[in-house]
């Protein structure tokens, strides 16, 4: 009796050791593509399917921090496993600082012969230098608004859904509340809500993201947000809403703001029930946040030719079209066939187009130059929100407190101002 028990334990150990050994060994000669985008399993799957058409690609989704650590470590040894990286614009300044990326100027020249790349994005890829192309723009995304058709009847009179002001938007949310008895505007407070503050509210009301952080305009904005908008926001926004497509589909909210990739399921599943529209305009313009994703090649790449070929593949209008179709990230090259888009993507595309084309458009970049402390700036905006809106603290006090934290973050990292704030010599300064 005891003996058989003992034997089964021994077998268990052996099995464990074997699986451990097998689990560790995974090597091949393909191009390794590490990306901070598409690191949710469903998305990883889709991009892998697209990449399969290029050939042997090992797609490795990663968080930003570990990717930077890995590249740093590989640069030290001189030999690397990562051939190509895909990351948000905001990730690249850190890599620039580490000097781990090839200058892709030559590749860019070749690519520009075949593809039509927007000059502004190419310029972003130089990260403030004149002649060092750190990344090639890969794709873009942004944040837009979504509404269930049932919400449209509450739209304030005379308001144009494609040219709303924030005042009208708040009125709309209030109308819904008055009409249905429930707060049905959803904000992804558990998700990427900080972008809403940084890229939408602040630019729309103060004209900038950082410099006007504690300005009188900002105080007015917070007052408005607290009193006019927040009462009509669904309470579970704070605790549960990270991807707004879920509550939209579940019918808990009928009006929402989120990243295009986090709304797409709603538009795709029920294209007849949901409409997409641009963010509203504020006194200073229509602040919105385009998200640029770039491709860079670490000089430790074992196969830089393969990496460059893969960049070429990813920029082909056909590939860009498929990424748009399947993953709802928008193309950076011209000539992408948008006639046959899935309905959901088409809805988003129209809203994105309208948002960018607005005469008052005030595109706000993701924070730049904060290095590995990029996460902290988001927390400052979130803290301001929590303290002012949730806790009801005095607005000016909170903004002064958090503004001080913001200023010291900027000083310590030496980050100069980035759009929509006016460029600065040295670290960006709050007004």
């Amino acid at each position: 009796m005891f003996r058989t028990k003992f034997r089964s334990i021994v077998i268990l150990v052996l099995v464990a050791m074997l699986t451990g050994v097998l689990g560790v060994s995974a090597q091949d000669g393909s191009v390794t593509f590490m990306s901070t985008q598409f690191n949710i399993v469903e998305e990883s799957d889709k991009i892998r399917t697209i990449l399969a058409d290029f050939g042997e690609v090992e797609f490795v989704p990663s968080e930003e921090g570990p990717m930077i650590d890995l590249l740093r470590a590989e640069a030290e040894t001189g030999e690397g496993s990562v051939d190509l990286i895909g990351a948000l614009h905001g990730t690249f300044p850190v890599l620039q600082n580490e000097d781990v990326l090839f200058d892709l100027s030559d590749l860019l020249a070749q690519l520009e012969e075949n593809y039509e790349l927007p000059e502004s994005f190419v310029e972003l890829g130089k990260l403030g230098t004149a002649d060092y192309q750190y990344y090639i723009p890969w794709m873009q995304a942004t944040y837009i608004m979504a509404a269930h058709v049932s919400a449209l009847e509450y739209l304030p009179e005379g308001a144009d859904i494609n040219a709303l002001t924030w005042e009208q938007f708040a009125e709309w949310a209030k109308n819904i509340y008055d009409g249905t008895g429930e707060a049905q505007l959803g904000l992804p407070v558990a998700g990427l809500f900080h972008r809403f503050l940084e890229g939408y509210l602040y630019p729309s009301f103060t004209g900038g993201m950082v410099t006007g952080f504690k300005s009188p305009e900002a105080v007015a904005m917070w007052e408005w947000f607290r009193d006019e908008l927040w009462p009509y926001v669904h309470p579970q926004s704070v605790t549960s809403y990270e991807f707004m497509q879920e509550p939209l589909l579940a019918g808990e909210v009928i009006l929402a703001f989120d990243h295009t990739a986090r709304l797409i399921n709603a538009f795709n599943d029920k294209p007849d029930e949901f409409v997409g529209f641009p963010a509203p305009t504020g006194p200073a313009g229509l602040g919105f946040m385009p998200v640029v994703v770039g491709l860079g090649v670490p000089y430790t790449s074992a196969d830089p030719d393969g990496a460059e070929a893969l960049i070429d593949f990813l920029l082909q209008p056909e590939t860009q079209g498929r990424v748009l179709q399947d993953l709802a990230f928008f193309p950076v090259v011209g000539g992408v066939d948008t006639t046959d888009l899935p309905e959901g993507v088409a809805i988003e595309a129209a809203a994105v187009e309208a948002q960018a084309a607005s005469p008052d458009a005030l595109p706000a970049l993701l924070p730049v130059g904060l290095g590995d402390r990029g996460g902290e700036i988001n927390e400052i905006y979130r803290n301001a929100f929590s303290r002012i809106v949730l806790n009801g603290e005095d607005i000016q006090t909170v903004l002064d407190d958090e503004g001080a934290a913001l200023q010291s973050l900027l000083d310590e990292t030496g980050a100069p101002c980035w759009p929509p704030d006016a460029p600065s010599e040295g670290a960006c300064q709050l007004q």
Partner: protein
Amino acid sequence: MTTRTLDPVQRRAIRQRQLRRASVYALAILIALWILLPIWLIGTMAFSTQQDVYGYPKQIAPIPFTTETMEFFVNQEGILEATRNSVLVAVITLVLSTAIAAPAGYAISRYFFAGRDAFRLGILAVRAFPIVILAVPLAVTFIEWGMFDKVYSVALMHTALTLPTTILVVSSVFASIPREFEEAAKVFGCNAYQAFIRVVLPLVIPGIAASAIFTFVMSWNEVFAATLLTIRNRTLPALILYSLNKSSLQFQYAGGFFMLAPSLVFIFVIRRYLFNMWGQITK
């Protein structure tokens, strides 16, 4: 039953006795329900149709019964992988922890040596320390050593976390084997090693197996270290925690049940040893 008539005082005493017993029963059942009801509810959700999962009001039994929701969960990319990681981590932890703890537990229970009390105290102190204090620097160290995001690094961490408990449990298991068994073996011709293998080991294996299962459960459930130490090779709890707000209700309910189910079995297996294990530690 005797049919002899009892005087009223006796009858009242009997009735009071029965009443008291019944109320203890009622209390016992009430507490059992308090523990079982939530499990039943999450089980209900895990085996309801998608429609019922999203539906409101909720049902309190999985009718119609379906494995659709569980399938949805299991078929999520990464779940099987994470489950495999979790099992792997737990098994490595169990083996490592038991292998390292067994000799130490034996030493503590069988030898009087200088520093024994200090060692015991040290172990208690380790157990009393917050995991968080270890996880952060270990994560940093593992990155430096190139061991970050590996299944075995989580197992190493879990071993450190479970080792103190395992040592104390194992030592109490050994302590429950009378020293005279070993002495008898020695008198009748065994050396220390033979006495251990022939007499002590067969007797402690059930107890140690119980402690190993407990180690397994601790590792299986551990979130903090697993979340800090992994990015791609997430263990199940780490993966679920990570994708909590991103995921649908179906995912959450099924995930909750999926994590909880093995515990039902394991605790059942080791229930007889629980007091053995914890009782002696507290001394």
